[in-house]
């Protein structure tokens, strides 16, 4: 008998618990279609009923108002391009050894290979015939020796240079060869260039070069068409970008 009373009381308590989730849905339906007796009541009760709480959206536990921070990944600075200048001596065949100056642009394709574009200028001297006979074969403008080369280089012997006990600089002995053209003696000729050089880097952004190259082209400036070998030795400096 006592057990039945307990069940009855518990059922009553459960039914009266309007906040219970099981009955939440029914409560919403009740408020959506309120009975006419409630709508016609002249004055609503001042205290909010449990039904009006159910009408409002359920409060969220965490308000996600924090904006997600977009992390910008810094880019890595590539440093494969070398730009610089060189100066030295070029032996223009038949026209003597003359100073030469030029600009160079290198792109390091890989650890081993690099591409190079050079533009150089020199001025041819007098041939022995001109010196002895006092007859000028070329005008002043025609003596201007300008060339450009497109070359591919290979770092044959990379290594390090040590200065004293505390300073080590990376270096490379490289072979280089390419094609280009030379403008000299009123004509422009196809040129093949090849040679070798040594590059040493005192810092990561500065390189010093010593280069020896031969510029070979076919010319008939001295009356007979033949291959002209023009050896040049230069020193230069480049900056890495």
């Amino acid at each position: 008998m006592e057990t039945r009373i307990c069940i009855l009381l518990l059922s009553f308590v459960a039914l009266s618990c309007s906040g219970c989730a099981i009955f939440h849905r029914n409560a919403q339906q009740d408020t959506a279609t309120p009975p006419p007796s409630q709508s016609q009541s002249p004055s609503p009760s001042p205290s909010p009923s449990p039904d009006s709480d159910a009408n409002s959206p359920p409060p969220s536990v965490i308000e996600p108002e924090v904006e997600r921070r977009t992390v910008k990944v810094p880019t890595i600075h590539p440093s494969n391009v070398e730009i610089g200048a060189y100066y030295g001596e070029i032996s223009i065949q038949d026209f003597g050894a003359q100073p030469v100056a030029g600009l160079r642009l290198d792109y390091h394709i890989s650890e081993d290979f690099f591409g190079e574009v050079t533009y150089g200028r020199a001025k041819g001297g007098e041939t022995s015939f001109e010196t002895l006979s006092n007859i000028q074969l070329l005008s002043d403008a025609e003596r201007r020796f300008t060339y450009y080369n497109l070359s591919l280089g290979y770092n044959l012997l990379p290594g390090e240079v040590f200065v004293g006990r505390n300073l080590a600089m990376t270096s490379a002995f490289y072979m280089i060869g390419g094609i280009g053209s030379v403008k000299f003696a009123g004509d422009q000729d196809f040129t093949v260039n090849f040679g070798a050089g040594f590059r040493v880097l005192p810092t990561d952004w500065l390189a010093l070069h010593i280069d020896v190259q031969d510029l070979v082209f076919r010319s008939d400036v001295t009356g007979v068409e033949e291959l002209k070998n023009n050896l040049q030795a230069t020193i230069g400096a480049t900056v890495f970008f």
Partner: protein
Amino acid sequence: MEFSITTTPSTRRWPTKVAPLIAALLLSLLAAADAGARDYLQLFVVQPYLELHTGPGRGYPVTQVVARGESVDVLMRRTEWFKVRTEHGIEGWAYERDLLRTTLADGSPFTINLGDRAGFATHRWESGAFGGAYAGATLISAYEALSLTDNLKIELSASQFLGNLSNGYLLDIGFSHVFMPNWRFSPFVTLGGGYERVEPKATLAEPLSSSNQTAYVGVGARYYLGRRLFLRGELREHEVFTNQNSNEVKNEWKLGFAFFY
């Protein structure tokens, strides 16, 4: 005892013209210093250790290692090598394939564009230089290409030709379509137009330079050599639109080295 510091106005004053120059110099130095204080990419070592070489090359000795869990700042990249600085301020060069096993700060793997076969198939830019012939004259040529897709590229090429009778220049722009970009040997077709300038050499007749528009069609092939380097050869037929009654057809072939980046 109190020390008093007295200052006397200097009789030498900076000339008014020099002051703005000095200010500009200081500002440029400050700008340079600001540019130097850039953010570096931070990578975390997840492999047992990361080797640091003394130089950007495979032969340079390994003198330092970075332990697992530590981070490095990537200062710069030179070819396949990255100069990094450890948390302890030690600098060294790490190989790109070793860095591929590191992670970013959020734990995601670090990825870079490697100079390998995958890069040969998919890359943004390529550049190269060639030797060849154009209508019997020796040709020197260079080109730059931008990949619109793996197959389709837009190309700009500049050439100089040196012949017995005339010299000249070519400037062309066009499209090329690579059929199988992931093949080591990949053929392509190309189509475009340009400009030709011919400068006849001094002969008995009065030399007259001429400039003409051209259109070309061509075929070629690329062959992957290794790293970022590949061979490229091409045959083109140029239709030169002259002022004469008929157009001229000139053939061009060229072969050379190119690289992608």
